[in-house]
């Protein structure tokens, strides 16, 4: 369950098309409001994605944006510029600022990326 209930998409001033690509290759495309968190939107659509702290810290919900894309990660408690450079996104606290294609289940990839750059991260 997301920390904050998803906002009503219909009343959102602006929405974006966000595609979630799961490990089995299946794709789910959603309209996501600019104030809605991507994890909450995925929940709303019935996607069961991993999460733990839901505060943008633990990287359990880490995913990766394919190609170009813009998103607001300012709600996260720990998110590094280097994470963004490599396209990593923390779904629990990310809000879309463009249409996005997102590959989910990237916790291990983000962990190893951070370790390689000597950035703090949970290891488990």
């Amino acid at each position, binding site marked *: 369950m997301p920390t904050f209930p998803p906002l009503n998409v219909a009343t959102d001033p602006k929405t974006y098309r966000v595609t979630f690509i799961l490990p089995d290759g299946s794709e789910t495309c959603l309209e996501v409001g600019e104030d809605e968190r991507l994890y909450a939107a995925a929940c709303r659509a019935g996607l069961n994605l991993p*999460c*733990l*702290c*839901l*505060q943008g810290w633990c990287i359990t919900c880490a995913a990766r944006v394919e190609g170009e894309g813009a998103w607001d990660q300012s709600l996260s408690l720990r998110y590094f510029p280097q994470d963004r450079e490599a396209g990593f996104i923390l779904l629990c606290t990310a809000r879309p600022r463009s249409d996005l294609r997102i590959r989910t289940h990237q916790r291990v990839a983000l962990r190893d990326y951070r370790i390689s750059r000597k950035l703090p991260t*949970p*290891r*488990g």
Partner: protein
Amino acid sequence: MATKRHASDNIVGHGDLTKRVGVEQIRARGVDVEKLIDLLIDAAGAEFTTYYYYTILRMYLAGNEDYKEICEDARLEDRAHFELITPRIYELGGSIPKDIREFADRAGCPDAYLPDDPTPTNILTVLLEAERCAIRTWSEICDLTLGKDPRTYDMASRILQEEIEHEAWFIELLSKERDGVVRPSGHFRRGTPGEAPYSKNLGFYNP
């Protein structure tokens, strides 16, 4: 003779001290021991930082003796969790980080900072979300060890149960404080602050 379901521990040679049967048995049952150790260190880090941050949060629940007492219960029980987890990490062949800052950096749950506006509602929200992160953590460790590693499972289950109590406490308090809604935790009392009946294996309050 029945077929063995799991690899035996004859991987550990006679008098060999470099391996532990207590580790190889759980590995043979499918536990990724290195991943488990990493998870336990992350979790211990979260319990340890929570112990520190709850010390501060408790101070700022000023004037609310009930909130302070319950925060103190959670604070000392989280400390008891750190004390309980650490020996298991070493037993499995792991170790906690050399530097205390690294321990905080790799914690599985966020630093539970004092909010800039330290109202009871804001502080109780930090406490609640910290407990929720802990519940998800220990639930995952239960999942990973169920039927494979009875000892870690037992420990995780004990800690999880205390974290579940903590969440219920903070929902009760925040619900009344913020929303004026009664949502009972269903609990009575701790005998002493931070009694930690599950993680210290003490008698329950059961009058």
